[in-house]
């Protein structure tokens, strides 16, 4: 092997690494660029009034408080639907299930559910909850739809958390004569709780940011008051952005508020995700097993 051919190979390596680094940094640049642009244009709209007041003057002034409240209700509702279903499913899959065709089908089902487009979820929610079950366009219908949307996320994270509990824990418990269910309830689940929490928080973030599932099932352009029952329509942050930008009555004048709403939504979702990431990092450091 001659040194010149070796040098040639190292040149190729530098080129390749350069490409690799370039692509990663382009990605980082895109993210930071978008965030920076929105922060710059939206920060002017942020104020205590913006977060606590309802919109005034055809939404050219005032705030987005009803949308924040609406998003809150919808997200909490989604978690109330998705978390129990998800955890129990995950517990079954990791603790009780025997390998076989049934489990394969369930897993395929979960993966496919994860891949269903959000607008199809919206159609489904419309057909089942709004119309057939006659809930109407409401927090209830929206929460159920969103809850099913985030179910695969919660199942996936819970499964991972449960699997990471060492088998020795279970074996020790069973060796002491504790029943299987008691083992799960008192030993496995508490140990897996931080991981499950992370997953649910990520699911929460996703539910807060989705628009298409709530377009036909829960969201309204403007509500005079805050919702007083789960059968009311609500305003919601992602839907608010969409309508103000595409279907509003004063699109240009509300532009600063649109940026502000986008910023609030981003802060909310990224904040939620960041909390989840930090919790996960803290668990990984704390774990002594």
């Amino acid at each position, binding site marked *: 092997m001659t040194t010149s051919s070796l040098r040639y190979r190292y040149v190729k390596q530098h080129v390749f690494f350069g490409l690799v680094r370039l692509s990663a940094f382009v990605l980082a640049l895109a993210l930071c660029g978008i965030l920076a642009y929105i922060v710059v244009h939206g920060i002017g709209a942020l104020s205590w009034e913006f977060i606590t007041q309802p919109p005034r003057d055809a939404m050219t002034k005032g705030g987005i408080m009803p949308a924040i409240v609406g998003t809150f209700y919808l997200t909490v509702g989604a978690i109330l639907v998705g978390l129990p279903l998800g955890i129990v499913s995950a517990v079954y899959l990791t603790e009780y299930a025997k390998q076989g065709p049934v489990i394969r089908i369930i897993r395929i089902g979960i993966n496919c559910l994860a891949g269903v487009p959000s607008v199809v979820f919206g159609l489904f929610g419309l057909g089942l909850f709004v119309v057939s079950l006659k809930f109407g366009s409401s927090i209830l219908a929206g929460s159920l739809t969103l809850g099913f949307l985030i179910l695969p996320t919660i199942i996936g994270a819970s499964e991972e958390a449960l699997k990471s509990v060492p088998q020795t824990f279970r074996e020790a418990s069973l060796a002491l004569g504790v029943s299987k269910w008691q083992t799960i309830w008192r030993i496995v689940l508490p140990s897996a709780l931080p991981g499950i929490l992370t997953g649910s928080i990520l699911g929460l973030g996703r539910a807060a940011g989705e628009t298409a599932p709530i377009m036909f099932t829960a969201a309204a352009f403007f*509500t005079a008051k805050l919702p007083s029952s789960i059968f009311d329509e609500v305003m919601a942050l992602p839907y608010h952005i969409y309508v103000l930008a595409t279907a509003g009555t004063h699109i*240009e004048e509300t532009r600063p508020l649109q940026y502000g709403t986008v910023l609030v939504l981003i802060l909310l979702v990224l904040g939620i995700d960041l909390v989840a990431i930090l919790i996960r990092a803290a668990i990984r450091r704390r774990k002594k097993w």
Partner: protein
Amino acid sequence: MNIRKAAALAIVCCLVAAAPVLAAENIVIKGSTTVLPIAQRALETYMKAHPGVQISLSGGGSGEGIKAIVDKTADIGNSSREIKKEEIALAAKKGVQPVAHVVAFDALVPVVHPSNPVQGLTVEQLSLIYQGKITNWKEVGGKDMRIVAISRDSSSGTFESWDHFVMKKAKVSPRAQMLASNGAVYTAVSKNRYSIGYLGMGYVKKGVKALAVAGVQATPETALSRQYPMSRELYMYTNGEPAGETAKFIAFIKSPTGQKIVAGEGFVPIQGAAPAGKGKKK
């Protein structure tokens, strides 16, 4: 245990939130984006005087408004067009009797970018442009540049009006931009010097230039007198005669206070032509 406490708290919150509405009445309004600014302002004023009433308002297009009445998913359906025969039949099948309330007058105005030198067009020219048969502004007396036609999607009452007055069932070229609302059309035309669009009168503001049709400019006077060829009523539909809060809200819009709101938003009050000087805003 912490999980238990959190779960209990969550359930309590849920129950509190789920307590069914007892006293406050609910009005759900959906439909036309043309009527939306009127409904929005009226809503803001109305709720200050009637704090107990929960009103929720959405856009989506006249088709959505009428559908909401037919499907009984709304109390008031805003529409910038008359209900169609098929919709009346569908409503009858579902036991719904749509009643129209005229709340304002409007004119359908073709608009172009302010830099466009064209002053007016005929109905025939407008139709050919939207069919895609006239493709360059120089063919209608403008500069030598292509025409970008901006239209509304199928749920729009404004689109139906355009079809009624201009297209007369001829198909709009699929290459036309389909936008979701008057507001979106305004934004698009104000930013695109090749473009032409059409708006309800209340949306015609500084950023676009209104064209005369058959030599007549759209003003509150020409709209009411029908001298301007593309004038229309704006409706709120209800299922049967309205009752309770719904009736009060519609009565409010028809009242002088409500009609002042109509004029303030750039439309034409039903009582008569708006006084000179008012009408178009900003």
